[in-house]
């Protein structure tokens, strides 16, 4: 039976109070990492001490773009191709992260818009499964829906 599967394992989770990206943070210098890393890479950090950390859900769009043409492999999308919006989002907890935007009117998306991390459909696989990934949804649009 067709189900709902993540695009990759261990990158994100849905919790009672919203979605989270699963990464790590260095307890020594505070640097956030997504996905997880084994060692802190901050050149000025004295002692790598990584702890598991969840990031999100609140953030602000630093910048955004629209994928006006079908991206080359290995990018995944349902056919017929429909342009999608992407953003670089600054999460309140200090992570600058990329993701697609979930919105009806993608051309209305602007930098500095407040967004929330969500888990949403990326595409469908050959077996009919819904493949999900993390995305960012404008907060105002969500509230007025």
């Amino acid at each position, binding site marked *: 039976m067709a189900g709902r599967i993540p*695009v*990759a*394992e261990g*990158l994100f989770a849905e919790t009672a109070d919203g979605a989270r*990206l699963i*990464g790590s943070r260095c307890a020594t210098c505070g*640097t*956030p*990492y*997504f*996905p997880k890393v084994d060692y802190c*890479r*901050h*050149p000025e950090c004295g002692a790598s001490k990584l702890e598991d950390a969840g990031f999100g859900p609140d953030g602000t769009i*630093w*910048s*955004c*773009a*629209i*994928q*006006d*043409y079908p*991206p*080359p*492999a*290995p*990018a*995944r*999308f349902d056919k017929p191709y429909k342009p*999608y919006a*992407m953003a*670089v989002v*600054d*999460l309140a907890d*200090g*992570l*600058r*992260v*990329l*993701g*697609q935007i979930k919105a009806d009117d993608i*051309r209305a998306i*602007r*930098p*500095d818009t407040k967004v929330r991390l969500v888990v949403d459909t*990326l595409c469908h696989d050959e077996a009919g499964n819904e493949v999900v*990934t*993390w995305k960012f949804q404008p907060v105002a649009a969500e509230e007025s829906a």
Partner: protein
Amino acid sequence: MRDVAVIGLGMHPWGKFADKSVQQLCRVAVDAALKDAGVAWREIQAVAAASSRFSGGRGWGLNGNDVIDDMGMTGIPVYNLSAGCAAGGNAFNVGTMLVASGQHDMVLVVGGEKMPKGFIQTSGVEETTDPEYLRQICIGVPGPTFWAFMCRRRMADHGTTEEQLAKIAVKARKNAVHNPYARFRKETSVEEVMGSALVSYPLRLFEICPVSDGAAAVVICSAAEARKRTTTPLWVAASSVATARFDDGIPRGLAGAVPADRRAYHSEAAGAVRGAMQRAGIGPDGIDVVELQDNTVYYELSFPEEWGFCEPGEAEHLLESGQTLPTGRLPINPSGGFISFGEATTAQGLFQICELGWQLRGDAGARQVPDAKVGLAQTLGLGGNGTATILKR
């Protein structure tokens, strides 16, 4: 360290050449550079070459070995340098070191490439431990989208308009009309650029560089050799290489830390350019002509600011007032730039050196920057690679 002179410049024009091999393109460029220098192949003591992922090099980036095979195997050392789109600049840097250190007196630097059709694809590594692979399967972020992110942020910060972006492409093509080595040599208009297909909003097809085939070569040598061969050598005032800094805020992978001021800058390019200026003892006011890496028109606005050539938000004014034309206060890309050449990625850094050379010799014809004495060339490559070269006459 010894002074390093540039005495030979050679290029094969940029374009799409289905019926020519990359060896044939390199042969034309190398022959032209040797002839320009008045140097025979057997006098070349070492080769520094840009490594290509796309053509020649026997799958190992051995592109310098290909050139040596083709020109005649004299037993000289070869250095194949890999730095993505910065490889040409990187090879030039290593070539200058070979001369400056006293190791060799006469060195050939070469880059040539034939590119596959379409937008440049990702590495082909299909493992979820590879951040670039994850970025593509989880989101789908081709190269031009990265440029679109940077450009859109600028529009929010400085009010840059889509018309201004189009005007940069118009200016690039206006210069390329006079450059026999450029691929796109027809003038265009703001209307035509704005009418070209959106690739990744806000960027349109005519505002990003396509892929091309091309080759360029440069002969460099010691001061003693230069004096024997020419009365008008050019000098390497500085050649600098840098990699990116951890905290520059550029969204290269899936995620990073939000920088303190939320801003982002291309630290590999800025590091190389500022490093070169410092080494040369020449500031922005002392540079007469700039060849910068305009993979997209956006870079013509951001780079001069990131390097201290103008104030943040001032670049649009320089453009609108004609100051970036060959006759302006800060001439940028009189060659026509990547926008007019397209990108034969690993050869780009050397076409820039050739263009600076012609500009400083006063041989640039109708695209000549009047009385250019000092020029700056800059590249930026995948992996956070940056290079900069300052030439003077």
